[in-house]
């Protein structure tokens, strides 16, 4: 027995270790070259007789990043940025769609724009763990470092403090804004804007960086079609106009290049992180009166229509910004750059030799990186014979293209400059493609080790399972589910559409339960059989939110007219019902605890019913808490998604608008903690007062109901009715005779189902930040992380805890239920007893709870087995498919999610919180 507990503990310890080891092999820090690039000899002096560097065209830079500025926000017909569009028509601005690679979140994008390199996936984690400073770019070569190194180079920065973390001590003047406080649309931007006008009068800086966050926050909160979106675009447009007119009018800004860009886009839900077209297509505009020189021959239509979904004008890579700035402002291309000088800007230089020199420097810098990747292939500057007709590997193809460059540079014949330019571009673009998509240098041995450790955890857990004397149907279903899940993890589309698997398996499982129950006893009104009701609820739940990739925009209940606009009253009726249900449950708990103190003297009566008076007291105690929680949700939604609160009285909404959301949320959390502490105290007292016998585990139920209140506080209003359905499912589950194995399988299936039903998927972009700041006024990593996790994993947390109650049949002898229900329940309980005795000769549910740790350990073992099996599958898939096209867009995010499931959910919720709940149920 002790041996099994030990094995299980080791198996669970191995889970985070396996994840960590695998992660270090899977997301290695990309080696980069340190130090600043300097102008080196480009070669072929005797042919070209380079005079000097091509003359820089600009000496100052205003780099304005508008977070999540998707291409259509600037170029589209519905855009609010009319001034920028007038500049494009006028030729003073040259527009692009800058392709951002996944992960499309701020920190890696800033790295890409400033270094010209493709940042590693690890930056996703670092982006969330904002306090981390190991990802700094202080020692890397960036255009910031180059501009700072110039004579008189001074940088100023206003906006997202990501820049301050990436570039510590770079800025002469700076004012950072936390980028995680997404509920704020205006302050974050005012904090930037208030510096701009005075800074435009200063002439000491040569680069000013502005990073506006408001637009991204609006997206996260309410999506790209939020009513706040157009006003924000107009506000940004106004900033562009202000800066542009300063450039036109101020002498010291005469040679200023103004770049307006988004770091990434957003998808239809307003989130980002993945690789959907909306997320990878930010706008990029170069603005200056001098740009007219190169826009003469370019179509200047604006607004316009996109070629693809979001592809406006010419599509370039985001990394192209770095070498382009280098050429335009006259500094060497940053060393780790994989970007290509944007062709349109070549025409700033009339002399073909200048154009060739610019590109040649760009090409030689990239060639250094290519050479380091393919050391055995010839990338020297000498003309030689290469067999380029056979089928080539990507490295050989690059070598051939470089050889073309070498030959065209070395020839003394008179070539049109454009010929050489074309050879250079051919090499540069191919090198960019190849080097960006080359899988990073995985540490394969660590990948093996990580997978092996996960497998070891799986094996150890398996050993703790009781001897397989007789295989049960539930065990077969459990095994089949896990095996099929493991196989499907190797299919990229099933990773993207994982919800389909869980929905499918859960329907099958419920129907199995129906058949299995029907074999014992035919339910006369079989349509209302608990298992059929479960199936029906499941059908509604899975349709509530569409998720995944392919059909994410397909019709679902949340976006249907049923609960939107004029019908939002239906939604609020359901939300109200959810809160009312919780209120009645909680008040019953409080009433019971109050009665405990009344009956404190008569020791035998501790488990007696509480009186009506107690019931009223309970309601009085709980009403303020639930009403506050409801009003918080209403006020939050009125600000967050006003289209959902149309049916409400304007005066009420105005009154709610004046509330401070932070303090109301704090009141709710404090209330939950208060009631929780009171319940623990009261139940402890009751437990001590009890002479003999056992309680019915009411404390566990009370804590569970409080948890439910916390979870719905962390859930978006339109998803709250789901918790009503979850509660109904739990009710019907208690009416079905489930073996411990069946309970474990049900827990796993419903935890996964509810995760996806709440709108989550295996894409980083589906992580919702909107409830991560409830009750928090400043940035605190642990608190935000907890709320973020609770809001995204609310469903799984609910069902993981529900599984504990199912296992121990906690609180079955509850008071205040109506008589008929009570009878029905007793009848089920008798049936259960009867069957349990027949089947296993063991005692019933209460004994499970009271008895040894066996049952609970068995439950944990089955959950652990599921998690470790899933991890093995995901890790093996990531390892085997590491050269797969979708490794960074599909499998890596899945690994991160699997890591979160394995650590935060499994260890934190299933085991730690679950054990606490189980222990509480023993009182």
């Amino acid at each position: 027995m002790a041996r099994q507990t030990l094995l299980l503990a080791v198996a669970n310890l191995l889970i985070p270790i396996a994840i960590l080891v695998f992660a270090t092999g899977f997301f290695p820090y990309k080696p980069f070259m340190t130090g600043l690039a300097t102008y080196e000899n480009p070669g072929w002096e005797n042919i070209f007789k380079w005079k000097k560097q091509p003359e820089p065209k600009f000496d100052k830079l205003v780099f304005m990043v508008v977070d999540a500025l998707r291409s259509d926000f600037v170029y589209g017909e519905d855009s609010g940025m009319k001034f920028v569009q007038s500049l494009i028509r006028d030729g003073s601005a040259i527009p692009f769609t800058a392709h951002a690679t996944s992960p499309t979140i701020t920190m890696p994008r800033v790295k890409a724009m400033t270094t010209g390199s493709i940042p590693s996936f690890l930056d996703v984690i670092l982006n969330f763990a904002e306090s981390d400073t190991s990802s700094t770019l202080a020692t890397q070569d960036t255009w910031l470092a180059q501009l700072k190194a110039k004579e008189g180079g001074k940088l100023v920065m206003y906006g997202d403090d990501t820049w301050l973390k990436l570039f510590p001590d770079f800025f002469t003047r700076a004012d950072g804004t936390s980028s995680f406080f997404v509920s704020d649309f205006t302050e974050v931007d005012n904090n930037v804007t208030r510096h701009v006008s005075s800074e435009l009068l200063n002439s000491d800086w040569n680069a000013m960086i502005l990073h506006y966050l408001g637009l991204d926050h609006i997206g996260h909160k309410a999506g790209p079609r939020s009513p706040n979106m157009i006003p924000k675009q107009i506000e940004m447009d106004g900033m562009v106009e202000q800066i542009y007119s300063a450039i036109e009018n101020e002498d010291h800004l005469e040679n200023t290049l103004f770049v307006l860009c988004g770091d990434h886009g957003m998808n239809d839900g307003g989130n980002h992180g993945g690789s959907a077209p909306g997320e990878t297509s930010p706008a990029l505009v170069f603005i200056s009166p001098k740009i007219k020189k190169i826009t003469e021959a370019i179509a200047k239509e604006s607004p316009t229509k996109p070629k693809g979904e979001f592809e406006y004008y010419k599509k370039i890579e985001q990394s192209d910004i770095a070498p382009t700035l280098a050429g335009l402002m006259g500094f060497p291309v940053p060393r780790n750059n994989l970007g290509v000088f944007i062709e349109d800007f070549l025409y700033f230089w009339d002399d073909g030799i200048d154009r060739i020199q610019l590109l040649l420097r760009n090409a030689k810098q990239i060639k250094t990186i290519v050479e380091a990747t393919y050391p055995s292939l010839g990338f020297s500057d000498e003309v030689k014979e290469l067999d380029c007709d056979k089928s080539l590997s990507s490295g050989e193809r690059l070598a051939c293209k470089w050889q073309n460059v070498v030959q065209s540079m070395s020839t003394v014949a008179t070539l049109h400059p454009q010929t050489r330019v074309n050879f250079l571009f051919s090499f540069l673009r191919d090198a960019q493609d190849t080097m960006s998509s080359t899988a990073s240098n995985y540490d394969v041995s660590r990948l093996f080790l990580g997978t092996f450790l996960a497998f070891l955890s799986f094996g150890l857990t398996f050993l703790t399972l009781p001897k397989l004397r007789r295989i049960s149907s539930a065990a077969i279903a459990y095994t089949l589910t896990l095996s099929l899940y493991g196989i499907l993890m190797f299919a990229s589309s099933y990773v993207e559409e994982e919800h389909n698997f869980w929905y499918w398996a859960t329907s099958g499982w419920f129907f199995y339960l129906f058949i299995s129950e029907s074999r014992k006893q035919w339910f006369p009104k079989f349509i209302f059989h608990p298992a059929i009701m479960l199936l029906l609820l499941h059908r509604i739940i899975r349709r509530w939110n569409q998720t995944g990739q392919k059909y994410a925009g397909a019709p679902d209940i949340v976006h249907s007219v049923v609960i939107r606009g004029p019908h939002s009253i239906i939604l609020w009726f359901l939300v109200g019902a959810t809160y009312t249900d919780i209120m009645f449950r909680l008040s019953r708990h409080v009433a019971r605890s109050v009665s405990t103190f009344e009956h404190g003297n008569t020791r035998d009566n501790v488990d007696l019913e509480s009186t009506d008076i107690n019931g009223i007291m309970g309601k009085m105690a709980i009403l303020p808490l639930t009403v506050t929680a409801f009003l918080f949700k209403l006020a939050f939604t009125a600000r967050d998604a006003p289209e959902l609160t149309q049916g409400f009285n304007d005066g009420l909404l105005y009154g709610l608008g004046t509330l401070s959301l932070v303090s109301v949320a704090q009141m709710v959390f404090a209330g939950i903690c208060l009631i929780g502490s009171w319940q623990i105290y009261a139940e402890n007292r009751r437990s001590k007062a009890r002479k003999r016998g056992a309680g019915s585990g009411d404390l566990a139920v009370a804590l569970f109901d409080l948890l439910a209140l916390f979870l719905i506080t962390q859930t978006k209003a339109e998803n709250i009715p789901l918790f009503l359905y979850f509660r109904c499912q739990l009710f019907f589950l208690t009416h079905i005779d489930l073996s411990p194995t069946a309970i474990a399988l049900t827990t796993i299936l419903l935890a996964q189902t509810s995760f996806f039903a709440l709108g989550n998927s295996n894409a980083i972009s589906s992580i919702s930040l909107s409830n991560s700041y409830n009750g928090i006024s400043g940035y605190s990593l642990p608190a935000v992380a907890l709320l973020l996790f609770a809001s995204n994993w609310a469903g799984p947390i609910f069902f993981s805890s529900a599984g504990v109650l199912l296992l121990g049949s906690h609180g079955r002898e509850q008071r205040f239920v109506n008589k008929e229900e009570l009878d029905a329940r007793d009848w089920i309980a008798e049936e259960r007893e009867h069957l349990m005795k027949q089947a296993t000769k063991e005692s019933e549910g209460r004994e499970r709870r009271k008895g040894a740790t066996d049952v609970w350990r068995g439950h944990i073992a089955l959950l652990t087995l599921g998690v470790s099996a899933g991890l093995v599958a995901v890790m093996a898939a990531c390892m085997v498919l590491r050269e797969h096209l979708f490794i960074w867009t599909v499998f890596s995010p899945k690994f991160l999610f699997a890591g979160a499931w394995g650590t935060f959910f499994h260890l934190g919720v299933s085991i730690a919180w679950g054990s606490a709940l189980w222990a509480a149920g023993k009182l």
Partner: protein
Amino acid sequence: MKIKDRALPEATNIYPTGFAQSYQHLHPFLVLALGSWYFNDIVANPIKGLSTALVWLAVLQIAYCVTCLPPYGTGKVVVEKKKPGEKEKKRSSQVATKIFTGLVALIMSLIVSLVVAATLVLFGAPMTTHHWETLLCAGHMSLLATLPLVYVRGVEGQTWQEAVALLLPVDDVYGGMIGTFVGAWLGAVPVPLDWDRAWQRWPVTIVTGAYVGYAIGKSIGATWGKGGKIVFV
């Protein structure tokens, strides 16, 4: 109402005649052939293809019932020698009974297909669109699964409860029913894959799964599964 309390019916036996014996093994292949014959039509235009195929499936299933299965009410297949004169007469009236029973079974199974359609929706079939596709899919499943079952077991409520509870003894008919539903359920697996094939559209894979499941289930039921009980441990 405990189901177990009642004595369960016995497994159905196929007519012992040579033709019936060989046809019963041929039947699943004919069903599969029918399915594959119409497969491209169904993919191209599900409603049209499924409707046409449904008619032929009905013919095929009734033919199978009439040829191989004892209709409800005749009890076990009794092999007895009759006098030559009697035999002819009896046979013709028997054929009429059989065809009548077959037609009743057809109508019943079409009614049951509504229940099957509701079950499909519960399992995730589209609710607001594709109504005809879902109904026709249910029709196919019902003709495969319930038509022969009604033919041999009748419409007695308790028998149907036992059928749903998987308590009937396994035979050709029952194996076919279980195979149809399991196959249809498994048929949903390829739908989310990103292969972008026309056959991934609703409800092609479900119907295909049902056909394949029927053929496998029936064959197993007819051979080593015969007479066995389904045990839930």
